[in-house]
Structures are given as structure tokens and as C-alpha cells.
């Protein structure tokens, strides 16, 4: 093991490098437990960041641009949520459309440009420590984690998420406002994705149309790896949090051992398949033994 592995700054680095993904993963967990999926998160991240960059390039002030970017994320979530919750289309397809469409809007906004030159305080927010040694995004992550835990595991809303994930009809017949729950989750997902996009823009210091492209797969992988059932109704944030730690450490460990991105993705891909296969194999072995 590399001696650099356990240093405090490395642990912060380890979060910092994937912080945007793991913030979004928390909300994705809620959505998947609810029996839906949001494939469009990475595109919404890109869209929000591009909106921010576009507005600043047009001379709009940073606070206003950030607000607009977050509102843009809410709007994206609103569109996804409307078609899933109120029109009743499958979220896989709606958010696939979103994945392609919002990325398209991001491209329309920035075209071929890369826009940077953000104010110092904004890039510092993404790049410098904010509270003690902790960067701002890490604090955001902790806050989102706590809020998500409170929502999913402690609140009545969280109970509704599970019930809907286990069967929409039972929830409906029990007086649960199914559409409203789904719609709010998509709103949350859109908002958090936009927030993550803004954070990413701050960390990178400039924005291109392809910002965060392809992140959705890693985000979903972390959630599924955390034991959340792709069919909805089961899973916990503890599992997701552990999976996040596992993925971050694996990536970091492999990175420090100079294994590059693609070996890492092989390992994570295999891990994902194994984590889904193990419960089945165990039950099979158990029935053999019995």
C-alpha cells in the first residue's frame, strides 16, 4: 500500500475528485428506490453549467447566473417529472430523451466555445478549502447526505418513497399522492444535478458543452452497487454511502497504483455485475446445501 494513501489531504482529494457525482448519486438513490430512474442528470449538470457560463458571458452577474442555473435544473426536473408523474410515461424513456435533449441545449448555449473567466470567489469556491481544510462541495455533500437520510429514512415522505417503489397501486389506494411524490423527486434530482453542475464549473474554472458527459453511468453504478434494487422498493442510503466510499477508494487506490481510468472502469464494471450476481448465487448455494 502506498504511504500517501491514508493522508488527510488525500482523503479530501478523494472526495473532491468525484464530489459532483456523489452528490447526485444520493438523490438518484431516492429515485431508484421510488421505482424510477433519471438518466438525464449528467446532461442537466452540463445544461446548468452552460447556462451559467452563457449568462456570465453575456454580462450577467454571478449570483444571478447561479440562480438561473439552479432554476434551469428545476425546470429540467419539472419537465422530466411532468411526463413521468402526470403523463405516466416510463422514466427510462423520458429521461433518455432528457439525456439527449438537455445535452443538446447545453451545446446550443455554448456551441463550440469554452467559457471561463469566472470571478475569483466563484472559482475559489470550487478549488480552495472553505471551512478548515474542507472544500465547499464536500460540505454540500455532507448536507445533502444528511438531508437525504432524514428524508428517506426518518420522514413520512421517505416511507412513501418505499411504498411507491414496492407498488404504485398500493400507494395510490392508500391515499398517497403518488404523482406528487414522483414529481418532487424529479424536481429534487434536477435541482441537485444543477447544483452539482455549478460546483463542477467552479472546480474546473471554465465550462464546455460536454461538461459531465457520461457521468450518469457512474452515478447509477454507485447507487446499484450500494444495494439499491433497480426494480425499486429496497435499498438504503447507508449502502449507497458505503458504495460511494468503496468506489472512491478503489479509484483512488488504483490511481495511486498508476492504474488509469479504463482499468478502473473494468474493475467497477465487474464489481457492479458481481454485486448483483452475489445474492442470487448465495441463495443458489444455500438451496444446494439445504
Amino acid at each position, binding site marked *: 500500500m502506498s504511504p500517501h494513501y491514508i493522508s488527510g489531504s488525500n482523503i479530501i482529494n478523494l472526495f473532491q475528485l468525484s464530489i459532483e457525482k456523489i452528490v447526485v448519486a444520493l438523490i438518484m438513490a431516492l429515485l431508484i428506490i421510488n421505482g424510477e430512474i433519471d438518466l438525464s442528470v449528467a446532461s442537466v449538470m452540463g445544461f446548468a453549467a452552460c447556462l451559467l457560463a452563457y449568462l456570465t458571458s453575456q454580462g450577467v452577474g454571478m449570483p444571478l447566473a447561479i440562480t438561473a442555473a439552479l432554476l434551469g435544473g428545476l425546470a429540467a426536473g419539472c419537465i422530466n417529472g411532468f411526463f413521468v408523474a402526470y403523463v405516466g410515461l416510463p422514466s427510462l424513456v423520458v429521461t433518455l430523451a432528457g439525456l439527449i435533449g438537455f445535452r443538446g441545449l447545453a451545446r446550443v448555449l455554448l456551441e463550440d466555445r469554452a467559457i471561463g473567466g469566472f470571478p475569483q470567489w466563484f472559482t475559489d469556491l470550487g478549488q480552495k478549502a472553505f471551512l478548515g481544510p474542507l472544500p465547499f462541495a464536500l460540505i454540500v455533500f455532507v448536507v445533502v447526505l444528511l438531508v437525504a437520510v432524514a428524508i428517506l429514512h426518518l420522514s413520512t415522505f421517505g416511507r412513501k418513497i418505499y411504498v411507491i417503489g*414496492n407498488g404504485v397501486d398500493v400507494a395510490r389506494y392508500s391515499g398517497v399522492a403518488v404523482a406528487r411524490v414522483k414529481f418532487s423527486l424529479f424536481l429534487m434530482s434536477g435541482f441537485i444535478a444543477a447544483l452539482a453542475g455549478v460546483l463542477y464549473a467552479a472546480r474546473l474554472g471554465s465550462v464546455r458543452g460536454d461538461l459531465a458527459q457520461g457521468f450518469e453511468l457512474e452515478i447509477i453504478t454507485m447507487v446499484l452497487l450500494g444495494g439499491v434494487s433497480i426494480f425499486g422498493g429496497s435499498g438504503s442510503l447507508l449502502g449507497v454511502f458505503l458504495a460511494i466510499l468503496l468506489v472512491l477508494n478503489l479509484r483512488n487506490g488504483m490511481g495511486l497504483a498508476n492504474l488509469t481510468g479504463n482499468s478502473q472502469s473494468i474493475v467497477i464494471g465487474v464489481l457492479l455485475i458481481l454485486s448483483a450476481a452475489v445474492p442470487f448465487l448465495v441463495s443458489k448455494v444455500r438451496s444446494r446445501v439445504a
Partner: protein
Amino acid sequence: MAALPVENHGSPVMELLNISKSFGATHALQDVSLTLRPGEIHSLLGENGAGKSTLIKIMTGVHQPDRGAIHLDGAPVQMASSADAQRKGVAAIYQEPLLFPDLDVAENIFIGHQDRGPFTRWSTMYEEAAQILASIGVQIDVRAPARGLTLAEQQSIEIAKAISLKVRVLIMDEPTASLSAYESERLFQLMQDLRGRGVSIVFISHRMDEVFRLSDTVTVFRDGRHISSRPRADVTPQSAIAEMVGREMGLLAPRATTAAEGVVLSVDRLGRDGVFEDVSFEIRKGEILGFAGLVGAGRTDVGLALFGIAPAHHGRATLDGRPHAPRSPRQAIDGGIAYVSEDRRQLGLSLPMSSSANISLPVLDRFKGMLGMLSRRKEAEVADEFRRRLHIKTASVEAPVGRMSGGNQQKVLLAKWLNTAPRLLILDEPTRGIDIGAKAEVHQFISELAAQGMAIMLISSDLPEVLSLSDRIVVMREGKQMATLDRKDATEQVVMAHATGQGDQAA
């Protein structure tokens, strides 16, 4: 279609010898033997969980027996899979027909055939399908997709499939559970027709009258054991029930009416386009208003309208004197209505979740504790109280409902809705598919609730149940209210006459 030779007293077509089957610690079947003769209708009786379905799954190769043998025509055979069993002439029709909604009727009949060559010959297939359906007197368009067919039509297709496969043993697991009386009647004719062709039929039903009308042989199971097999003439309903439950048990006794003053729900000319129309009735405090009719008569839809799932388009209803027109179940629940669904597994309970979570669900807001968070302790306390009150058999109220037996699940479902402390309780088929013991308990409990002053709307296709529990009975047919009968005027004959549209002749 060539008729098979009729031989009523031939040697056994199928024999099960000393079959045992366990699922983990559950001994679903222990040392069970059964003999099936050609051209007989052989009924299996037993409480829920007695092992009937397990036995037929072994006959059709879905499960493999732990011990014992299966003989066909005297020779031992292995049933490797349901397809294998079909090839050997043994097929099953389940309570919920298993069709392919996207394929058309003819394909549904023939898709399982292994011997028709590598190509689909569409025109030949349509012709043959039409012939088979005609031969059993069913009129369904063979080119229509199976999606959207009625349950009865779907069962006809299953039977056509069995005929096309030239089966010799046809197993029917609770085929009438969701059929109207008229549709059941058609099915019985078909069964007799098949028997005439020499097909042996294994028939499972919880309805005694059907069993005693149709069977040649009656077999009783209890707790995974074979209790008796006798010709029908040697069995009475009472003796069979005694064997099923292991004790003597009276049939339903009518309850004493407790209806008091004060109208809880009043419904005036309620209607929903294309579903039901002009339904009017009142329910008073402590009154049980029965709803009788054939399946599809629209009783559930009236309940769903009042519960806000599929709101009414016409007419008006008042609850405790205030207008009642819920647009969602939430509004209905807040208004004081509870609806115990007929479909426990799909609509009633969240099976992977605990009883306490299920019981608190409709009124979750009442279980808020600190900071508006959910209080699990409060939930458990309430659930535990219901566990005692309803004699729910479960190790813990935190255990998943899905692992409980059907009867206990039904009690949890009742608890869930009683927990809302409703003014009006709508019970839709509250005892469907649960065994006699649990059923009696549920009946007892419904009576108690009425005695305590709750207004109850009881939708049931179990005529004796409606007749013995209700104070008054509304009979529906095809979305119309045919009659509202006082308890003293209601007999099975009168109710059925109204339900089948023969009310005028009967009156």
C-alpha cells in the same frame, strides 16, 4: 376435431404415489397419493395452505417431488417441466389465465405447440383456432390481441389451448374465483363436455356448491396430508368441511341487525360514464349494506367512485350530510371513508414491508413525532394493538407482510383501514381466497364493527356471506342497480334472479 373415446371406468390415467414435498421447513405435502381415472371430474378440497396447488404443480412438472412417483397409464414418468407435462398430455389452467397480451388469440392457442414445423403458417393457424373455439361454443375473434379480453374469454382460450394440445388430464386451480355466475355456468358446461371426451379434470375450488354439483370424486387435504378420496355420493358438504378443518363447524349464522338512526352516506343517482349509472342508496350508522352481483356488475366501481379512485361523473353523494365528491383517495380518507380492496396483493398491502408500516400508511401524518419525523415506536404500538385485537398470527409486527398466510394478510389489511377510524368502511370481497377458519373470524369481526356503530358497505360475490351479514342488499347488473332488497326478502334465488336480469320473472 376428432372426439377422444369415452371410457368412464377404465384403468387410472394418472397416479400419484406417496408424494412428499417440502419448502425449507414447510412440509407442503407428506406422503400423498391420488388416483385419476379417465373422464372424471376430481375435486380437491382443503383450507388455504393445505397443499392443493403444490400437488398440481408437481403433476405439471413445475415442482419436482422430494419423494414419490408419478405414473401415467401405469408406467412411471418424470415431469421435467410444464412443457414436458404438456407433451405428455397434462396441462393446467390457473386462476389468473396466463396469456400473452400482445399476441393475438390464435397465436396464444398455438404458440406452445412444438410440433408445427419451423414456420408460422398464419392462415392455417387462424382457421384452426377458429374451429377449436367454435367447437367449444366460444365466439372470440381469433385475430384480436389477447389484451383487453375478459377473464372468462381468457379462460376459454386456455381451454382451447388445452384441447388443441389434446390433453388427457386438465387441471383447473380455482378457475371460478373471479368468474361471474353466468361465466362459471359456461365453464361448467365446458368441463362436462371435456369429461364426455374422456378428459380427466382436476378441479380446485373453495366454493362447496360448485364442487358438489360437478365432481365425480372428492378428495380432501389437510396440512399437506391426504385425508380422504370418495365418490361424491358418499360425501356431504358438512362432512367435507369437518375433514378440512379437522373439527365440526356450522355454516354461517345470520347476524342480528344493529342499524341505528343517522344516515352516514347517502348516494343519489350516482353514475360514471360507461361503467355504472343511476345508483342510489343510503347507509346508516351500524348498518351493513350488501352489494351482490356478478363479477363486472360494477360494484367495485361504485366503491372506487366513493373512494375517489375513479370519480363519478353524475349524481351526488353526501357523507354525514356534507357533499362528498372525492377526486382522490386522500380526500376520501380524510372525509372518513376506508376501502378494503378485493385485490390484497396488488392494491391492498405492500408485501415486502412490515405490518406496522402497512397499518400506518393511510394516515401517516398521525405518526409524526419529533421535528415532523416518522415515529416508529408509535407505529409499532398501534400495530401491536391491532395484532391483539384481530388475532393476527405473526412473530413481530416488523416482519414483512408477504411472509404471512393469506388469512393473516387479510387481517392486516383490515387493521390498516380500521386504523383510519373511518365513518364508512367499504369491504370489497373481504374473504376472497382465505380459508374457512379465517373467514369465520373476519365475519365475526365485521359484525362487531357494525355493532359498534360503523357503517359498512359489503361488496361480495359470496352469496351466503352477503345474505347472512347484510341488513339490506343492493343487487347490481351491468352497471345498473337492479334492486334494493330488505334482508327478509332476500334469498339466493331472488338475488341471483336480479343479478342475471331475470328479476321481473322472479318477482
